[in-house]
């Protein structure tokens, strides 16, 4: 992996998370990998993604479910607020689980052409710092299965 593709995560303010990452592919293709359920299934969540439904239009709903081992499942859902292929989409996100579904946050994802590649810029905005930090906390549980998937991929690569 080159330094250009290094994942960068910062906290630009109390309630935001800014994530950037470069991909060595045209943005139409990167866009499809984020918005076409068949393609999303192939990479997101390191094998922990069990449900992936995306109705890609303004007002359309989406739903993702991650398996999180002992923690059960992490069901997420929301609605699209903006869909501008292949530049930008914005959507709401909430836990699909009462009473946590009462609170939602927003995620704005930009796909910027960057030479022959694409720069992904994702801004997550929460209502406050506690909610933001809670999301970071939630990410812990996806990690274990993600590692297991990576182990499989690495093993498969070495057998080639």
């Amino acid at each position, binding site marked *: *992996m080159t330094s250009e*593709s290094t*994942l960068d*995560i910062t*906290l*630009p*303010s*109390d309630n935001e*998370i800014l*994530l950037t*990452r470069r*991909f*060595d*592919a045209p943005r139409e*293709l*990167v866009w499809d*990998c984020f918005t076409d359920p068949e*393609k999303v299934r*192939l*990479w*997101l*969540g*390191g094998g922990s993604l069990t449900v992936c439904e995306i109705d890609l239009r303004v007002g359309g709903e989406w739903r993702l479910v991650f398996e999180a081992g002992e923690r059960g499942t992490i069901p997420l859902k929301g609605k699209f607020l903006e869909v501008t292929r292949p530049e930008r989409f914005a959507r709401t996100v909430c836990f699909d689980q009462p009473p946590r579904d009462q609170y939602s946050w927003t995620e704005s994802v930009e796909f910027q052409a960057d030479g022959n590649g694409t720069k992904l810029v994702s801004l997550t905005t929460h209502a406050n*710092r*506690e909610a*933001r*930090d809670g*999301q*970071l*906390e939630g*990410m*812990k549980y*996806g*990690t274990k299965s*993600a*590692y297991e*998937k*990576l182990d499989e*991929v690495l093993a498969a690569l070495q057998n080639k």
Partner: protein
Amino acid sequence: MQPDHLSATFSALADPTRRAILARLALGEASVKVLAEPFEMTLPAISKHLKVLEGAGLITRSREAQWRPCAIHAAPLKEAVDYMQQFRKFWEESFLQLDALLQDLQSKDKPND
């Protein structure tokens, strides 16, 4: 570490001046006057930032010397980094797979590539 400590750490870090102060203190202890030099800010404004950093346990201020030097206290910072790392790992693993997928999809489009 208690969750409220972690919130205090993130809150303290969510400001470019305070991050710059921490970066300076990583090189060694310094007085308020020295810390204020790179910024177009008054000493009271800098002192306010230092109070936030001190409250989050990210710096300590000596009570002995007259000039009260500030020093970095890295333990809460490490907790915060470890914590962020979990989030990073999730995306890093996913994006590595996306890299492979994108490569695969492009080689299908252009068999001569």
